[in-house]
């Protein structure tokens, strides 16, 4: 399966009477987009705004971040099973508006949503201070349940990203990158002397607004399964999460998973990127046992020599992580884990809720409990009214000078467990 990613480099977004790309600028017709999003009766209103790198702007509370894209060749469309028909993606050509992002925000669906600061201290902790963001600030219809609202917000973000992506059809790409994964037999023959390395992507699937969708399927309803890495890169996985902002994988993270990109980079040089396993993080112990059994079984079945495992979220998913590690290691296949830590504000507490001697190679994406003071911003998109109630916030955390104190937990993408960031710990 071969996927060509055509990047159109976007360095600004401006509102206009036409949605188009010209000389690296994405022009958006807000009236047209607004009308399209308001077709959903669950959405009472949406305000469209722009946040650019370096501007004194805070976006709060942030639900999801999505990269605008369009499929111009090959089967399927963007976000299959959600926005497009449920056709297998991961081959052909996909155009990416690189440098642009859609950010969904507004009244919280769950109380675990995040902060993106475009300038100041906070900007260094979130990757989305570096993208030009089209921010959709939603107001829900009256009487909507949290689940209905989450679904509407999720779909609106995806629809908006798809709508903006359409502008990529008429633009020239600035760079082209090709990714290819072969079938099992050919892949094994291609680099027979290199270690066969696989990737286990754990997806948040605890329910209660902690969900991830694969081709439209709620991942908690799936057994552990296989996916071509290029499918993951091509929008097959979308976030429906309202979990702690620091370590949830937004849809943007799934579209740009650095573990997959780096494994492709190393493919044929130091390793043979052989397979990708997709698993969940459910709330029943039987599910945890079954899913981790399957991860180990598939790893063995695929004759892998090593596996990278990434977690999403924290708390009881630490057990899924450790179970995956322990069971895969028991088959004789070494693992490396990527996770983050909740080690207390002083960093001295136990980092994970579970542990095992088999977990002897762990990469930390930082301590989510670390406190950070975010300076007052000139402009707030959304509402700062919930800042004490976000996960990572606490009572009276707005200081006299207007700055706010939060744990890194509240900053979108700050301790991302795919390693999509700069934080680590030793």
């Amino acid at each position: 399966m071969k996927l060509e990613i055509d990047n159109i480099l976007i360095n600004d977004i401006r509102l206009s009477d036409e949605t188009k790309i010209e000389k690296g600028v994405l022009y958006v017709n807000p009236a047209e987009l607004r009308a399209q999003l308001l077709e959903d009766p669950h959405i009472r209103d949406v305000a469209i705004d722009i946040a650019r790198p370096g501007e004194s702007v805070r976006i709060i509370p942030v639900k999801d971040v999505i990269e605008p894209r369009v499929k111009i060749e090959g089967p399927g469309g963007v976000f299959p099973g959600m926005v497009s028909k449920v056709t297998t993606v991961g081959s052909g050509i996909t155009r990416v508006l690189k440098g642009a992002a859609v950010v969904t925000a507004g009244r919280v669906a769950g109380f675990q949503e995040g902060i993106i600061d475009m300038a100041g201290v906070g900007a260094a902790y979130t990757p989305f201070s570096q993208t030009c963001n089209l921010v959709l600030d939603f107001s829900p219809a009256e009487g909507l349940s949290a689940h209905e609202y989450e679904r509407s917000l999720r779909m609106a973000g995806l629809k908006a990203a798809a709508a903006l992506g359409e502008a990529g059809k008429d633009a020239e790409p600035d760079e082209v990158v090709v990714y290819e994964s072969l079938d099992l037999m050919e892949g094994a023959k291609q680099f027979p002397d290199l270690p066969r390395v696989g990737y286990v992507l754990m997806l948040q699937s605890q329910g209660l607004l902690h969900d991830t969708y694969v081709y439209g399927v709620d991942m908690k309803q799936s057994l552990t399964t296989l996916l071509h890495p290029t499918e993951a890169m091509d929008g097959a996985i979308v976030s429906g999460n309202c979990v702690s902002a620091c370590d949830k994988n937004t849809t943007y993270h799934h579209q740009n998973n650095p573990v997959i990109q780096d494994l492709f980079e190393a493919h044929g040089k130091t390793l043979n990127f052989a397979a990708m396993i997709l698993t969940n993080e459910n709330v029943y112990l039987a599910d945890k046992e079954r899913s981790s059994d399957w991860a180990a079984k598939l790893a063995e079945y695929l004759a892998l020599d090593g596996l990278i495992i990434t977690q999403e979220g924290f708390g009881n998913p630490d057990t899924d992580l450790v179970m995956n590690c322990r069971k895969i290691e028991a088959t004789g296949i070494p693992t490396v884990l990527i996770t983050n830590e909740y080690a207390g504000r002083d960093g001295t507490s136990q980092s994970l809720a579970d542990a095992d001697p088999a977990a002897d190679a762990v990469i930390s994406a930082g301590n989510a409990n670390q406190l950070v003071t975010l300076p007052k911003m000139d402009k707030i998109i959304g509402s700062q009214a919930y800042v004490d109630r976000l996960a990572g916030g606490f009572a009276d955390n707005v200081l006299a000078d207007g700055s706010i104190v939060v744990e890194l937990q509240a900053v979108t993408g700050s301790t991302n467990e795919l390693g999509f960031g700069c934080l680590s710990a030793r």
Partner: protein
Amino acid sequence: MPVVHICTVTPISMTVGANRIVPAVAIPHPLGNPALPPEEEKQVRRKILTTALEALSTEVELQTIFPVK
């Protein structure tokens, strides 16, 4: 004094060092199952509780998980 830990994620219960562990239903609803009709759910709840009481009155040498029958 003996203590029973009723817990959904028993591996964490093991990690934190509980001696008598009884598996619960699920993290959002450890002691019940809202998917069941009330009468059946009552049976589930009763079984978990009686297992816990049995565990409480059982001598253990090592960390022990008492499966709910």
